[in-house]
């Protein structure tokens, strides 16, 4: 093989197009299309008593206005509940357009179609909807009190109660030498991709087919949903995810109401139709995440080893549950992290509120679980007067204990068994990178009045959930390698990483490999891009497809070269006898030879005739079991997830007067198995940490008591700028996964997972006051200081401040 490509920090091939404004995003398409805009509920909870569209009818350029009553058959049915679960006893979903009751601000009530978006908004403004307001349920406490119900037929506002347990946690805590009990909370945030959602549909009446572009994380499932709703066969619906400007989870939900309505109306009107979500819509009608209140009881021994842990979590899932209870499942399982917990019980109560739906956002419940566990480790350390890192070390699963069975069921319904890892080494590297052991001296040497603090946190992340992904690889007669996989890309660098895998497997130059993702015209079976699964799932599927193609190429070349396939190798796109470049045939020629129909359209076809590969006259030109063409298809389906892991550490400084919090240093040690491209992995970590910093210090969803979202804009929703994100120091550990051919683990979500836990730990250390609620703003910290001045129980014991 020529230059090593697998594992190299190859520059991202997609960046040239993105950085020069030549990306092809949803709104770049369909310039002549009609535009849709939506009339959305201004109320958190109300009954619709009348919709009067007459005021909008004289808007020039208006084409149509639709309400729920206009939707025929399955188009108007409630949206699907994608992932049912026995614990989700009261799952509810909304309608594509509200039928009679609206349950959150932003719920779509009417769709307006006009010649452009300006006119559509003009008309939407003139649609008069009469509402009879109903009492709104906002916040976890109000939902739990259940004085009012979000859904009349859901008692107590409880959608699900999920229990996960191993052993008798209550008994273990009671018998433990030490026990603590406390409450933690974490607020809402959201994916907020820079590109919002969007759908563009073209109906071909003569062909009876539909092409839909959607800014989605799953084009194949969107296709299936549209086909079912519109009564079309799958084969008559094409769904393409063009360049997608970020997803981070929110675009895995499908079908969104707009993904049903826009194709339906495009077909009905026989006109191209496009909807491009604007930022305000995204804040109130896409999805949020994270909000939880956690009541923790923990029992432990003198060394800080956890003997029993009992966590009761109240989870706010918003008005509907289209994505099931994935977040509660992930929180309650991944909470355990890299630790051996004696006995464990988690009970998650998932509650309805009159706020936007809650579906996975990068991390998908892990940040909350890790926050809970890591805050608990800090509590234990403080209680015992021990070093926080040492307490963690005392609880770690050891390298010789893999595979390690945590005794729970993971999100894929399979046992929670960690495949591989080296957690003590992660912790050691993180301590070294941040300078944990020298920090006390560093703090002592800092000038008087400065308040520095250090924190750390570990996590384990189940990645690469099944059920499967596939890859297709074809080498054409020009030697180009076309790789396609069904899952989609939202900026992760798949075009680069998948090309590296194919180039390495096939022995071809990287620049000859062309990657297509998320296009049902090219690959019809896929699951989607979420749960840090793309590299693991499609990466391995592509590798398997490449191995088939390589085997076929060697077989054909062996015939042509009159050699044994076992003596052949491929270097820089040329098949040759190992150690002898003179006996060789280029893959492009092998591609010609692979197809008995040899019209001499190009020089390659003509050149191929020199190789006398022919079949005996008594045999068919294509042998039984063979196929024409140099192509192959592979699927990868894992028995269960593979578990990545990491340790983060930070040093913060708090201003003694203004209570501002600055992150001075941020260190990440990360283990995602074999690295395909360390630069891409680092980019994923940087982006994740940036979102984690947002969740730790800046972002929340400011709902008032009536259910209005007060910060539905980038002016008031404080997504961090580059100026708020610290330089990130990274270290890698490579513990290959034994579960897949490439030995890789997912990396997409890792960066975000422990950040709130780490920053809380560091701020607490700097300030000497307990931090139980995140995010924390300067005002929050200032208020904590005032409260701690009067209440010693809020202060952290001085002895623990140094470590």
């Amino acid at each position, binding site marked *: 093989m020529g230059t090593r490509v697998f594992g190299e920090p190859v520059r991202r091939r997609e960046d040239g197009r993105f950085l020069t404004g030549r990306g092809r995003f949803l709104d770049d398409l369909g310039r002549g299309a009609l535009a849709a805009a939506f009339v959305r509920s201004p109320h958190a909870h109300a009954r619709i008593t009348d919709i009067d569209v007459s005021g909008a009818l004289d808007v020039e350029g208006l084409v149509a206005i639709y309400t729920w009553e206009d939707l025929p058959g399955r188009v108007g049915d409630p949206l699907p509940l994608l992932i049912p679960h026995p614990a989700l006893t009261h799952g509810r979903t909304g309608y594509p357009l509200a039928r009679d009751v609206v349950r959150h601000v932003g719920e779509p009530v009417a769709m307006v179609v006009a010649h452009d978006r300006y006119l559509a*908004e003009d008309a939407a403004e003139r649609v008069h909807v009469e509402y009879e307001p109903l009492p709104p349920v906002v916040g976890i406490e109000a939902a739990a009190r259940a004085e009012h119900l979000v859904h009349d037929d859901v008692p107590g506002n409880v959608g699900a109660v999920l229990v996960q347990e191993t052993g008798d946690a209550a008994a273990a805590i009671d018998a433990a030498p030490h026990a603590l009990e406390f409450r933690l909370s974490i607020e809402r945030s959201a994916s907020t991709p820079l590109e919002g959602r969007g759908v563009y549909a073209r109906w071909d009446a003569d062909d009876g087919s539909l092409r839909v572009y959607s800014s989605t994380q799953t084009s194949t499932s969107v296709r299936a949903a549209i086909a079912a709703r519109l009564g079309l066969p799958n084969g008559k619906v094409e769904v393409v995810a063009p360049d997608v400007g970020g997803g981070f989870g929110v675009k895995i939900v499908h079908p969104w109401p707009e993904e049903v309505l826009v194709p339906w109306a495009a077909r009905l009107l026989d006109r191209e139709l496009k909807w491009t979500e604007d930022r305000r819509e995204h804040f109130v009608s896409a999805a949020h995440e994270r909000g939880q209140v956690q009541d923790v009881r923990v029992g432990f021994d003198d060394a800080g080893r956890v003997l029993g842990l009992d966590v009761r979590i109240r989870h706010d899932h918003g008005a509907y549950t289209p994505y099931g209870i994935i977040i509660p499942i992930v929180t309650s399982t991944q909470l355990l992290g890299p630790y051996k917990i004696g006995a464990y019980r988690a009970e998650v109560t998932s509650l309805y509120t009159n706020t936007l739906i809650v579906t996975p956002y990068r991390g998908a419940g892990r940040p909350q679980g890790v926050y809970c566990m890591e805050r608990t480790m800090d509590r234990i350390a403080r209680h015992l007067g021990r070093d926080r890192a040492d307490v963690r070390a005392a609880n770690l699963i050891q390298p010789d204990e893999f595979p390690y069975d945590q005794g729970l069921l993971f999100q894929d319904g399979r046992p929670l068994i960690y495949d591989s890892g080296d957690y003590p080494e992660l912790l050691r590297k993180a301590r070294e990178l941040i300078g944990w052991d020298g920090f006390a001296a560093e703090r002592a040497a800092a000038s008087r009045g400065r308040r520095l603090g250090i924190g750390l946190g570990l996590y384990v992340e189940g990645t690469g959930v099944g059920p499967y992904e596939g890859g297709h690889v074809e080498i054409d007669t020009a030697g180009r390698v076309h790789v396609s996989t069904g899952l989609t890309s939202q900026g992760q660098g798949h075009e680069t990483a998948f090309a590296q895998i194919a180039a390495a497997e096939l022995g071809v130059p990287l620049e000859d490999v062309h990657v297509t993702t998320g296009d049902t015209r090219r690959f019809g079976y896929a699951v989607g891009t979420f749960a840090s699964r793309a590299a693991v799932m499609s990466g391995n599927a592509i590798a398997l497809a490449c191995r088939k193609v390589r085997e076929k190429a060697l077989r054909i070349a062996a015939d042509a070269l009159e050699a044994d396939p076992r003596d052949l190798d491929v270097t820089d796109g040329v098949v040759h006898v190992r150690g002898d470049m003179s006996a060789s045939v280029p893959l492009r020629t092998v591609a010609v030879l692979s197809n008995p129909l040899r019209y001499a359209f190009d020089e390659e076809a003509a050149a191929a005739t020199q190789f006398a590969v022919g079949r005996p006259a008594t045999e068919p030109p294509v042998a039984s079991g063979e196929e024409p063409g140099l192509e192959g298809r592979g699927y990868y389906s894992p028995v269960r997830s593979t578990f990545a892991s990491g340790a983060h550490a930070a040093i913060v400084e708090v201003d003694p007067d203004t209570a501002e919090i600055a992150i001075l240093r941020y260190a990440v040690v990360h283990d995602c198995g074999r690295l395909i491209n360390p630069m891409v992995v680092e980019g994923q970590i940087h982006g994740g940490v940036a979102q984690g910093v947002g969740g730790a210090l800046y972002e929340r969803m400011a709902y008032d008591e009536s259910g209005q979202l007060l*910060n539905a804009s980038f002016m*008031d929703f404080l997504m961090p700028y580059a100026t708020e994100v610290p330089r990130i120091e990274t270290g890698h550990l490579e513990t290959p996964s034994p579960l897949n051919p490439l030995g890789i683990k997912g990396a997409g979500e890792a960066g975000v997972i422990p950040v709130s836990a780490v920053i809380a730990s560091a701020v607490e250390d700097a300030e000497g006051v307990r931090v139980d609620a995140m995010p924390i703003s*300067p*005002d929050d910290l200032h208020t904590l200081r005032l409260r701690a001045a009067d209440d010693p129980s809020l202060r952290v014991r001085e002895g623990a401040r140094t470590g």
Partner: protein
Amino acid sequence: MKPPPFGYHAPRTVDEALDALAAAPSGKVLAGGQSLVPLLNMRLAAPSDLVDINRIAELDALRAGDGGVRVGALARHARVERSAEAAAVQPLLGQALRHVAHPVIRNRGTVVGSLAHADPAAELPAVLAVLGGTVEAASSRGRRTIPAAELFAGPLESSLEPGELAVSAFFPALPPRTGTAFTETARRHGDYALAGVAAVVTLDEDLRVRAARAGYLGVSATPLVLDLSGAAGPRGDWAAAAAHVRERVDPESDIHAGAAYRRHLTGVLTERACAAAAAEALRKAGE
């Protein structure tokens, strides 16, 4: 987030602009558009007409003289921020402009536009107020000079009348032995401040504090100016001045910070800004 329909005018001279404004009573002036365009897109403003003054060359002026700095209606933040001449005459302008949003916004936004927008959380109204500057307004009826104290009528409300165009702003020069400083705390770099202070401190010949004034943003409905000379005393007790300020200000709570924190913060920033301004005054007195 698309604006409702509006009439659009692109005059080449001030007189043409004034004619267009006179003919469109609910018209709005478009200069840098950094506040107006988002308001239009969110349909929070729906003017009948936009009078775009970007083609009026005579308004693209910046003049620094002995008396002060005059900034024309088309001078962008970035130009004023980088002007050494303006900084030499009135350093507070550049000190404050560095805190206005982000470089790309400062490349388009205008100083006079920010004053006319009259956002009490913005930097420039506080600067004009603490310096006792003025705004020159023109209309088809004539011209008038509006003192800062009369310009800011309420949050996002100036005393400019329908048909009037703010053609320039004047920031008076500093007296001798005077230092300035600007400081603010924002949630993120470039955000509207939770609170901010523009401080001006003048020393007497014996290097005692003769006058100390501070202009505040983010803590009141219009820019607040406080005379701190008495509270600080001749020796410049800035902690005492801060305590005085905390008693005087009455900020509101919003989703980013509560009133109590803002009051506390206003004191902290007062102490820091006044100390920095006094140190600068001392340095100048020594020159």
